[in-house]
């Protein structure tokens, strides 16, 4: 892998009140790769993901996406960048409960100004790709955990993002459903060229990644020396 990194975090520090969450974390994500962020509970791995995704602004250090320092951007363009370039999958799908699964998947496109019919056509294609066409008309509460996560993956990928951020995406699933979700997440991301940043404490989930970094006590120990 010699391509320049898409997303680089350097020496991030972040505290919540007096509690430090990150104390010098660095990471780099290359286009199209799957990177696992591992570490014990409370190690700061989710905080690192949120900083990489521009959801949190670090107290010190920088996050650069394609040469642009995220923390230099005002809230609105940073949110717009998150919407257009990033996709998200969380432990619990965080789908909008009042909307059908189809409407949930179409939502990022609608927010981007695409008309409803066209957005829903694209959304339906993604539901088919993730083999959950049968839940299109259902609300998220009427689906199983595995189906809900596949809908969430469809929603994350529908806008053709460069990076998918997945925080414990199989944390609420049994082994077989977790495996299926990981297969589909990695396959769909690779097919569409998106990188995946995957937070997990499970080694079997991290084994789907191309490489891993380990966060311990808020410090990511192994940023590649060349970066």
């Amino acid at each position, binding site marked *: 892998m010699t391509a320049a990194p898409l997303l680089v975090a350097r020496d991030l520090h972040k505290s919540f009140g007096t509690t430090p969450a990150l104390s010098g974390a660095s990471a780099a994500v290359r286009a199209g790769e799957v990177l696992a962020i591992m570490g*014990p509970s409370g190690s700061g791995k989710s905080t690192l993901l949120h900083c990489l995704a521009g959801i949190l602004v670090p107290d010190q250090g920088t996050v650069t996406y394609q040469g642009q320092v995220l923390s230099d951007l005002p809230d609105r363009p940073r949110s717009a960048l998150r919407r257009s370039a990033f996709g998200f999958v969380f432990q619990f799908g965080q789908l909008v409960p009042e909307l059908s699964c189809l409407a949930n998947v179409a939502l990022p496109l609608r927010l981007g100004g695409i008309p409803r019919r066209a957005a829903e056509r694209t959304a339906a294609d993604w539901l088919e790709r993730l083999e959950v066409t049968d839940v299109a008309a259902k609300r998220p509460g009427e689906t199983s955990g595995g189906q809900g996560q596949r809908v969430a993956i469809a929603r994350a990928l529908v806008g053709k993002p460069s990076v998918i951020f997945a925080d414990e995406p199989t944390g609420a699933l049994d082994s077989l459903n977790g495996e299926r979700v990981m*297969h589909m997440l990695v396959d769909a991301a690779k097919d569409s060229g998106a990188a995946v940043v995957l937070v997990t404490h*499970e*080694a*079997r989930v*991290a*084994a*789907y*990644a*191309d490489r*891993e970094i*380990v966060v*311990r006590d808020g410090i990511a*120990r*192994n940023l590649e020396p060349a970066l």
Partner: protein
Amino acid sequence: MSIATTLLGLLETGPQHGYSLKKSYDTYFGQDRVLDYGQVYSTLSRMLRAGLVEESGVEPGGGPSRKRYAITEAGVTDLESWLGNAERPEPYLQNTLYAKVVLALLSGRSAHDVLDTQRAAHLQAMRELTKRKRDGDLVDALICDHALFHLEADLRWLELTADRLAPLADRLTGEQK
């Protein structure tokens, strides 16, 4: 894995020549290492002497490859016993890794580095198994799952040991005094 008992299990589906038995074994269990012909025939001879298999016909032409073997009642009993009993849980790498961690701490080297190096090797092995599982069929998946769960158990031990390095170092320092 006992090759003899595995061959018994294959023979239970019907009598076979040594050659076809080897082929069956390789198909189901030879993912990492295929069976030598010599090993098949020496195992069959042993099982013949023990009464677990018997010859069930010889084709013209002679030679060991022309003999057909069938499982006996004693062989079925042996097989059932093997299938019905749990394997003894074996310690894997813990003893070696424990020794490395202790020696690193005693010598003032980084025990975290020892654990991180092992973690990286374990995860690499798990990546390879995950790939093999994804590219393979159901049999590959079952074999790889078993290895993956064992490696994961080792990794959990590595994690827990990493969290216990400070008290372990204190204890070792106390014992040195």
